[in-house]
């Protein structure tokens, strides 16, 4: 038996959960800063991205050490190689949440500019990120499939955002700067949804050995 190796794989899962939680928190904080027009929280959120970058490097070196020392095959190799791919998408999620926060610090968006779909997009992407890590740790293919399908919800919310903003600009009922910044933010949330989808696809690979749509 390889108890030391099993411990190291359990530690990898632990790290992945920690990084997933950091991603969930940074999305939640960016959303809260937006909803409450809280520039201070936005600046704090931008700084939190560095923590996600550190976690990525920690997991990366843990995985490389496991590849070197244990020469893993089969499900062990899939677990480690998937983790290496997933953290790249998680790191991008951190970047995009930081980008959202940066836009908030520009100060163009005020409470009266806020629109419903943004909050829903933030919550939907948080759900996707956290569930994809759950699916990874519990090797739950069914959940991974659900997450991939859920990206359509995020895409639809983004389209709704665009419709709302076009209407507002057309009727001149809001500041055009605010509308454009909101559109950028919505796009970042939509990209976060795409990264969460990538993560779920790598979860499927770690379970089944093939990626969604490989056939």
């Amino acid at each position: 038996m390889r108890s030391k190796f099993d411990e190291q794989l359990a530690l990898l899962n632990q790290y992945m959960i920690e990084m997933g939680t950091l991603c969930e928190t940074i999305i939640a904080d960016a959303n809260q800063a937006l909803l409450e027009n809280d520039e201070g929280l936005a600046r704090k959120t931008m700084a939190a991205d560095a923590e996600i970058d550190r976690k990525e490097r920690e997991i990366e070196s843990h995985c490389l050490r496991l590849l070197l020392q244990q020469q893993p095959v089969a499900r062990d190799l899939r677990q480690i190689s998937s983790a290496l791919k997933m953290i790249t998408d998680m790191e991008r999620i951190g970047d995009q949440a930081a980008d959202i926060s940066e836009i908030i610090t520009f100060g163009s968006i005020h409470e009266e500019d806020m629109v419903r779909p943004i909050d829903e997009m933030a919550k939907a992407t948080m759900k996707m990120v956290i569930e994809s890590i759950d699916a990874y740790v519990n090797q739950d293919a069914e959940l991974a499939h659900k997450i991939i399908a859920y990206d359509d919800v995020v895409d639809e919310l983004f389209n709704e955002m665009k419709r709302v903003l076009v209407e507002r600009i057309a009727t001149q009922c809001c500041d055009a700067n605010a509308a454009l910044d909101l559109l950028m933010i919505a796009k970042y949330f939509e990209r976060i949804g795409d990264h969460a989808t990538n993560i779920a696809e790598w979860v499927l690979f770690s379970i089944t050995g093939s990626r969604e749509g490989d056939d």
Partner: protein
Amino acid sequence: MDKDKLTINQLNLHYGDFHALKDISMHIPEKKVTAFIGPSGCGKSSFLKSLNRMNDLVETAKITGEVLLDGEDIYGKMDVNLLRKRVGMVFQKPNPFPMSIYDNIAYGPRTHGIRNKAKLDDIVEQALRNAAIWEETKDRLKRNALGLSGGQQQRLCIARAMAVEPEVLLMDEPTSSLDPISTAKIEDLVLELSSKYTIVIVTHNMQQAVRTSDLTAFFLLGEVIEMATTDQLFSMPKDQRTEDYITGRFG
């Protein structure tokens, strides 16, 4: 589809009361490297030896089933000497004859009736070149082969096996007694030779199977549990016992 070089149908091997190989059926494709893996005593070496009738030398061994070489049963009317010319073998420990490098290689061709000096010279050089040991030995062909290093001796044995122009090369843990550099040379050689020969290699080194083979068969307690392309077997094994063995969680 690759052409089968060896086709094994329901092979059973008994050593006295011990049932060493149980109902093994397998296709070994031509000009590919097939690796056998499995824990010690699982029957992989016994199976390898059944492929050129080395078990004939074991008094208590009893074999049933078929081993077809290009469709012809090797346990039928085939001449054993001719079989072993066509199906050569390299063993775990290098076992050069206590004679010169040249005579080691020329031994096989001479027993098959080749006497012409120029022809033998040519065979010796070609075999040593094929085994990637010509440069190291060309200036000392008349020296005793036992003076070579372990890795060189093993490549000499591969050259010796190839001097009779076999079609299949059976290798029983050919690098288990060698250092990493010699091991890498033999592995490169296996990959090189696979364009001309059908190679079957038994190995305890799983990474070696991954590096060198096209197909891998996993043996356990005298049975073949799973056989698949090496990529498939080491990334997505179908049987839990294979998964447990290759990931080191066996037993």
